[in-house]
């Protein structure tokens, strides 16, 4: 079972999500930009991706498009996170949208829904 991939250029968010998910018994991987995210996914297929909209090097929509063109990644659920207005991103082919800031409950609900069986402990 692959990790939950957290993609965000804000170090604090990455560290918080990683910590909370690891506390819950999930394996995690992190990436701080879109290119790094695709590299991580090609190395190991994740069970779920938390993807920020605005990222350096390659932004969230570009990562989503690349995933949709990749047969191995096409079906991986993606939660798109953003502090920008929903009208900018609500039509993108993500599985869920998570406006920032969000709460721990919302995060864990989504993880349970899309990667509930991926707990390693």
């Amino acid at each position: 079972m692959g990790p939950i991939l957290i993609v965000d250029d804000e170090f604090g968010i990455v560290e918080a999500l990683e910590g909370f998910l690891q506390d819950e018994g999930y394996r995690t991987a992190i990436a701080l930009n879109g290119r790094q995210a695709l590299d991580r996914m090609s190395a190991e297929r994740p069970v779920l991706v938390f993807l920020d909209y605005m990222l350096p090097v390659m932004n969230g929509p570009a990562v989503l498009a690349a995933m949709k063109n990749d047969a191995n990644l096409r079906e991986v659920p993606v939660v798109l996170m953003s502090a920008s207005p929903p009208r900018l991103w609500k039509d993108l082919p993500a599985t869920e949208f998570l406006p920032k800031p969000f709460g721990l409950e919302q995060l864990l609900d989504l993880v349970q829904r899309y990667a509930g069986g991926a707990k390693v402990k």
Partner: protein
Amino acid sequence: MIEKTPSQTERVPTGIPGLDTLLQGGFVKGGVYMVMGMPGAGKTILANQVCFHHVREGGKALYVTLLAESHTRMIANLRSLGFFELARIPESLAYLSAYSVLEEGGLEALINLLRKELKAHEASLLILDGLVAAEEIAPTERAFKKFIHALQAITGMVSCTTLLLTTGGGQGLKAEHTMVDGLLVLRERTFGVRAVRELTIRKFRGSGHLRGQHSFEITDSGIVVHPRLEAVTGNQSSTEMPSEGRKTFGIKGLDDMLHGGVFQGSTTMLFGPSGSGKSLLGLHFIAEGARRGEHGHYFAFYDSPQRVRDQSASVGLELEPLLKKGTLSLSFRPPMENRLDALGSELLSLIREKGVQRLFVDGFDALSKAVVHPPRVSRFMAALVNECRAAGVTLLFTLESQTLFGLELKLPVRGVSMLCENILFLRNSEVRTELRRFISVLKLRTSGHDHSLRELHISNRGMEVGDPVADAQLLMSGLSLESPLLRSPRKRRLKGRGR
């Protein structure tokens, strides 16, 4: 789409009197705030007071210290304060030392501990006491910034409002100051032999707040903040209540001089030397209102309530029935170490909460002595006057002249007379071999008035104002010259006066 939480405007009240006024309701929920101050500034008391209020309101709080001091010692010191409730510990309010975790595992171990403990305690308020220890252990400034950033992300996700207590490690602006949502600075300053505690909100994201320095004190009940009166009223009192007409003194001669009294919502200065009758005149005014069912309050600096009762009774002014009825109230603040804004808070409460309609502040000079920044006196008074106008409260205050006799007469404070619609001038005057009291109306804005001088009589029948004085010269200098009036016998002069 998942709904956005928490709301950016949702507040966490501090429960500290005055502080929520400064913060316009409290901290923003989920925000991270830094409370800075040197040891003894009051940070720990402030944070604990916020914690106990928070748990009384149904929240859960976690107090984590990074200092070597034990919680037992801190709790022992807090026990005497009114807000402390042992029964809240540890279910609602948990204390935790992270000193050894920080020492052994650094910032990474600390952030892991905080994340797990916040979740385990379901804390909605976190206090991190001794942030300077985390700063000292951080290998680089960047590492410390990352720690703050991670803490913000974690507390934001669990909607936990956070207070970081620190000495600040110096006066300059530091990176972490720019990262947090708000910055509160506590300090103690000395003015001569007086020590004054001050609180400043340097930064408060996402909300307005009352800027500048505000005084606070640590009482048996905990911290009480006194927002600057001019800051509070400047924000709120923009409208003026329409006047409902004249307010009488109940002294016929004087009410005649004023063509029926002073206007409701106006401010009147009773100016004169010691012993000229200012206090008794003010008492007459509020007692007259109280007899008519208007709540009057006497705010005294020099006379205790018992002394006021006795003195009034000795001149036939019975306050007791009015006090019992509740239409008259007295307060006494001896002019020792009063703080101007503490007095301001009391006056504001009388006007806004207690429904006072006639307010008599006896001793403007005591207000002046309570100020540590002298230029504030006139601004404070302007704020009080505006507040009274807005609430339709008729204000009287006394101002003592510095000289008892003489031709030269100066107002001891600049910028105050122009705030007053009305000025009544009282004077003791030497008339041959006796001292007599006289009164005149220097100013009665928006109304005509009697420009004559009249004699003021105080006897066991109360205060009376005589007929206009004719032909006398320099009476109000305190040194009268010969005149037909002064040669006439006293009985004739009083004939036909008010009552």
